[in-house]
C-alpha cells in the first residue's frame, strides 16, 4: 500500500516541482480555522499547490497585504478607506471577496420565558441598565451577563454592533459585573444550568438544547431568529460578512483557489465549522 502509492506520487512531485504554486494566506483569527480547513482539503486535491495559513488578526493580515507580503488577507471586517489608500500608494489594488458569513446568537436557558429582544434591550442588559429579567418582560430574576474574554474578536464585534448599536460615537461599555469566560464552552455550560444567564456565541457553536433569542433591529421592527436564511437575506441584525482580499484581480493559482472557495464543495465546510455559507 505504502509502496504503491508512494512511487507515482514522488514521480508526479518531481515532474511538477517547477510548477508548484505557493499561496500565502494570513489574517483574522475568526477565519483561521476555516482557512486551514479549506487549505487542507484543497492541497489534498491539488498536490502542486502549497497554501500557508496564519492568523494574527484582521489588521495584521491587511497590513501584510498592503506591504505585498501575502497573496490573500483574511478579514472579519471590511477593509478601511485608509488601508485602501495605503495599499494604493504601494501600487496594490485590494480586491474583496465575501467568503462566508458569521452570525452571533444570543442565548438563554430554555426555562427563561423571554424569547424576543430588541438590539437596544440587549445593549441595556449588557451595559447594566437592566438588572432584572422582569424589565424585559421575563420573570423576577437577576440577570447574569456572560461574555467572551476581551481578546476575542467576537467580544469586540458584540461591543461595537450590539452594545454600541453600531454607532461610532457611542462609548457604552460592558457592565463591570459581566462574567468574562475564557471559552465558548464555559458560556454554554453556564447558560445550560443557570436560568438567570444570558450569553452570546457564534451560531454554529450553539447546541440545540439552548434557547436562541429572536432579535429586532429596533422597537416596532420584526424579530428574527438566527438562521442561514435570515443571515443571508440580512434580516438578522447581528451577522457579519467574512472577507478575503487579494492584491489586484487574482490570477493563476490564487484565482483557482478563490473560485473553489465559493463552490458548493468548499461552502459545505463553512457550514460544518459553524459559519453561514454564502451560497
Amino acid at each position, binding site marked *: 500500500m505504502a509502496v504503491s502509492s508512494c512511487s507515482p506520487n514522488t514521480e508526479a512531485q518531481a515532474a511538477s516541482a517547477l510548477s508548484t504554486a505557493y499561496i500565502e494566506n494570513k489574517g483574522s483569527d475568526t477565519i483561521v480555522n476555516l482557512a486551514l480547513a479549506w487549505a487542507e482539503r484543497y492541497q489534498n486535491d491539488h498536490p502542486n499547490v502549497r497554501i500557508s495559513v496564519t492568523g494574527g488578526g484582521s489588521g495584521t493580515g491587511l497590513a501584510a497585504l498592503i506591504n505585498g507580503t501575502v497573496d490573500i488577507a483574511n478579514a472579519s471586517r471590511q477593509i478601511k478607506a485608509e488601508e485602501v489608500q495605503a495599499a494604493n500608494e504601494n501600487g496594490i489594488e485590494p480586491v474583496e471577496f465575501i467568503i462566508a458569513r458569521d452570525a452571533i446568537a444570543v442565548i438563554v436557558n430554555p426555562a427563561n420565558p423571554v424569547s424576543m429582544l430588541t438590539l437596544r434591550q440587549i445593549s441595556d442588559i449588557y451595559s447594566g441598565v437592566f438588572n432584572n429579567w422582569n424589565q424585559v418582560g421575563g420573570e423576577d430574576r437577576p*440577570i447574569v451577563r456572560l461574555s467572551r474574554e476581551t481578546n476575542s474578536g467576537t467580544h*469586540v464585534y458584540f461591543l461595537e454592533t450590539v452594545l454600541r448599536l453600531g454607532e461610532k460615537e457611542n462609548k457604552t461599555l460592558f457592565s463591570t*459585573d459581566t462574567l468574562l469566560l475564557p471559552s465558548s464552552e464555559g458560556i454554554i455550560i453556564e447558560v445550560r444550568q443557570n436560568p438567570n444567564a444570558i450569553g452570546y456565541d457564534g451560531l454554529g457553536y450553539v447546541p440545540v438544547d439552548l434557547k436562541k433569542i429572536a432579535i429586532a433591529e429596533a422597537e416596532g421592527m420584526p424579530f428574527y431568529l438566527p438562521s442561514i436564511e435570515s443571515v443571508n437575506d440580512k434580516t438578522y441584525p447581528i451577522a457579519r460578512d467574512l472577507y478575503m482580499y487579494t492584491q489586484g484581480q487574482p490570477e493563476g493559482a490564487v484565482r483557482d483557489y478563490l473560485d473553489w472557495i465559493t463552490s458548493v464543495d468548499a461552502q459545505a465546510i463553512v457550514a460544518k465549522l459553524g459559519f453561514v455559507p454564502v451560497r
Partner: protein
Amino acid sequence: MEKSLNFREFIITRLIKLCGYSAIVFVALIFIFLMKEGIPTFQEVEPGILFSARWYPIEDYFGILPLITGTIMVTLGAALFAIPLGIGAAIYISEISPRWMREILKPLVELLGGLPSVVLGFLGILILSPFLRGFLNLPTGLTALAGSMLLGGIAVPTIVSVAEDALDAVPRAYREGAWALGATRWQTIWRVTLPAASSGVLTAVMLGIGRAIGETMTVMMVTGNAPVLALSLSNLFSPVRTMTATIAAEMGEVANGSIHYHTLFFIGMVLFLISLAINITASSVVFRTKKRYERILS
C-alpha cells in the same frame, strides 16, 4: 589517591553550592525580567488610571485595583477553608489516628495534591457552581466563593503534608510529660504538641497560601472573571477577577511591547511582591516563635 579524593570532594561541594545559589539567581533573574517589562507601565499609564477601579484593557482602562482585591478575596477565602481543615487533618493523622489509618490517609492526601488544577476547575464548573447557586440562592455560582473552596482544596494537601511532618517531629517526651501531669489528650495536643510544632505548622500554612495565590487555571474557570472591585464580604458571593486569571487570559493575544503587555507584566510584578511579602512575614514569625519555644521547652 588522596589527591583525587580531594578533587572529587572539591567538585561535589562546588556543585552543591551551585545548586543552592541557583535558586537565588533564578528568582533574581525572573524579578529583573518582570521589572524590565513591567516598569514602563509607570511612564505609559497615569497612576490615577492604574490605581482606578475599571479594568477594560481594549479601551485603555488599566485599573488594577479590582484584580488585586479579587486575588485577596479569593486567597483569604481559600485560607479560611484550608487552614482549619488542613491543620485538623494533620492533627488527626499525626496524633489521633491508629497506625493503619495513617498509612492510608497520608498517601491519599498526597494523591489529592497531585490532582491537576484544570480537572478541579471542570468539577467546579459542572458540580460546585450549580450547587452553590441553588444552595445559597445566588444569581450565579461562578463566584469568589467557588474559587475559594477549590483553592482551599488545592492548598489542603500541602498544609496537611508539611504540618503532619512538623507534628510528627515533636519529641515523644513532650507528650509523655504532659500526660504525666494529668493533661487530657486534647489539652496535650492544643497546649503542648501544636505549640511545639508551631513553626512547622506556620510554614505549612504559608506554603499552602502561596500555592493558592498563584493558582491560575481553576480560578479562571470558576470565579467568573468579572473585574469588580471587591471591598466587602458580600463580594465573596459575587464573581471576581484575579491577577493570575487576567494574565493567563490576556497574555496570549496581546501585542508585544504594547501598554497592555507592560501592564500585564506589572501585574505579575505586584503578584510577585505579594508572595514575597507573605514569605518574609512568615519566615520572620517562624524565626521569632522558634526562639521563644526553644527557650521554654528546652
